[in-house]
């Protein structure tokens, strides 16, 4: 399904933020904003809900820790107990360091791979930039021209009032 996109290009973080807020106040949904660096306050301006990645990281960390404690207990106390200096088979305090390391390893890797999966980032993926320069010094605000009531001229005036460098319309074939 093709969509008509309305893109405003800014060269300043503050202008872009104000434009995003103004567009949202007028009831437009922000498709996306492309920026060269993470802009603080943009989550709020775009109305994005907080990421749920921390819960996943917590889950994986906990899972790894539980499995590791069980594994250490099973190997040293059940499968093949070896007498090491007369210490008890089940020497739980000695299991803490490895459990901690494995927990951090799994939590960290799950954060990274979860992030790649949610954002659909993978090696060799072709990057489709809305306008050139968003990885350098440009800020691009993308709106969808959802229906006939979308007033392109009014929107252009609005963006220009926030010192937009350029505005343009694009037809997107798939979701960007």
């Amino acid at each position, binding site marked *: 399904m093709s969509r008509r996109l309305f893109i405003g290009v800014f*060269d300043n*973080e*503050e202008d872009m933020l104000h434009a995003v807020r103004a567009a949202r106040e007028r009831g437009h949904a922000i498709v996306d*904003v492309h*920026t*060269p*660096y*993470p*802009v603080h306050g*943009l*989550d709020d301006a*775009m109305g*994005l809900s907080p*990421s749920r*990645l*921390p819960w996943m990281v917590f889950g994986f960390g906990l899972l790894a820790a539980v499995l590791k404690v069980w*594994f*250490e207990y099973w*190997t*040293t106390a059940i*499968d*093949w107990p070896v007498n*090491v200096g007369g*210490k008890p088979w089940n*020497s739980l305090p*000695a*299991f803490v*360091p*490895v459990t*901690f*390391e*494995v927990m*951090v*390893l799994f*939590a*960290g*890797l799950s*954060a*990274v791979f979860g*992030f*790649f999966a*949610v*954002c*659909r*980032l*993978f*090696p*060799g*993926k*072709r*990057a*489709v*930039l*809305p306008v050139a*320069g*968003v*990885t*350098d*010094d440009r800020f691009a605000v993308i709106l969808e021209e959802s229906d006939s009531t979308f007033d392109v001229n009014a929107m252009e005036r609005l963006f220009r009032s926030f010192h937009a460098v350029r505005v343009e319309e694009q037809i997107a074939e798939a979701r*960007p």
Partner: protein
Amino acid sequence: MADAAILRPPLIHGDKSLAEVTRDVCAPMDRRPGALWWSAFLISAGVAGVGLLAIGYQISTGVGTWGLNRTVGWAFDITNFVFWIGIGHAGTLISAILFLFRQRWRTSVNRAAEAMTLFAVICAGIFPVIHTGRPWFAYWMIPYPNSRGSLWVNFRSPLVWDFFAILTYFTISAVFWYIGLLPDLATLRDRSSGWRRWLAGFFSLGWTGSHRAWQRYEVVYLMLAGLGTPLVISVHTIVSWDFATSLLPGWHSTIFPPYFVAGAIFSGLAMVLTLMLIARKTMHLEEYINQRHIDAMCKLILTTSGIVALAYLTEIFTAFYSGNRYEQFAFVNRTLGPMFWAYWTMVSCNVLVPQVLWFRKVRQTLPLVFVISLLINVGMWFERFVIIVTSLHRDFIPANWSSYTPTSVEVATLAGMFGIFFSLFLLFCRFLPVIAVAEVKGALRIGSRGARQEKGAQA
């Protein structure tokens, strides 16, 4: 302009625009490397080659090529291992701990510091592997189901803890570094052509700077910083347990974990400073790594030097207060015994020399700062040498006492690691942005003209 005085001085000098940041940081990669880079690289690669030959020789011949004996069972190899692991710690301090403390000045140095961490951990990891004597069995450290009845590793042993700690530390440092690099690889991709565009494009995973991705990126960065902070403390704590859980006087001490962690960060910061002072000069990044960054690092060095000094004094006090004659002897022997020179080199380089950093004039004289950072590196190497060799060479029964002299193979391995480290770092400087472009852009407006303009616009 009346409020200009209350603003903090800018982090980045020269009132840079966003495009200028990209250009300045990527410029060294566009140029052909100069004679300076080539000579530095060829020397380090040559030294690395000698080191690799020495490693090959000692693996094929056996650990008898070392100067170790039955009394001094650990020497250069474990000294080097602890030294390099310690170097790595400053990278994680700057990337994770200072991130949690919202120290924005870190943005200019964190990329290079993280790269340094990665390379230092690579250098460190080599030593325990060759120290096992039969490195082709190093995988026995992994608890995998095996044909020896499934004989599992001993999870009560600090050496096994160490294996897991180093493994986790390397992996997490690598992904942390890569995640930080992701937006910059996209920037690199969009401004270059040919094979470099293809490579950067492949590894930038199709990054477009979408804020939906940035939002999660920031969360992941925070998660990794939050996990990296206890991790970095745990790593050197576990390294110190390799010593502290033994019964040897001079090692068997509860002060070891904090003492080692502070020492690690101290030595690592000195190495960051050494590398940064070279990089800013040779790559013309003086506006990005300026006096303010160097000042901050010098102050961190001073702080950690103070902690290290406290640890040295506490060790001596505890030895005498304990009333344990073996413990007392270990410290008398350390300070006045046959290896006194190593101990006093350590104290002078780690405690006395850094004190001059109290003076602003010294912190502003960069050649002097450079020399101090080198001396601290030397001092911290000697700290590990002192802990290991002077504790081991005279333990309980005088009949067992011996001395230790390194062989040429060990010296070549020591030098070779520096060669590998600097070769990797020089390659990194050539092919990847040394400064985190996206992060610096985010911190650019702190105290800059742009921030003042914006204030005026809102009023």
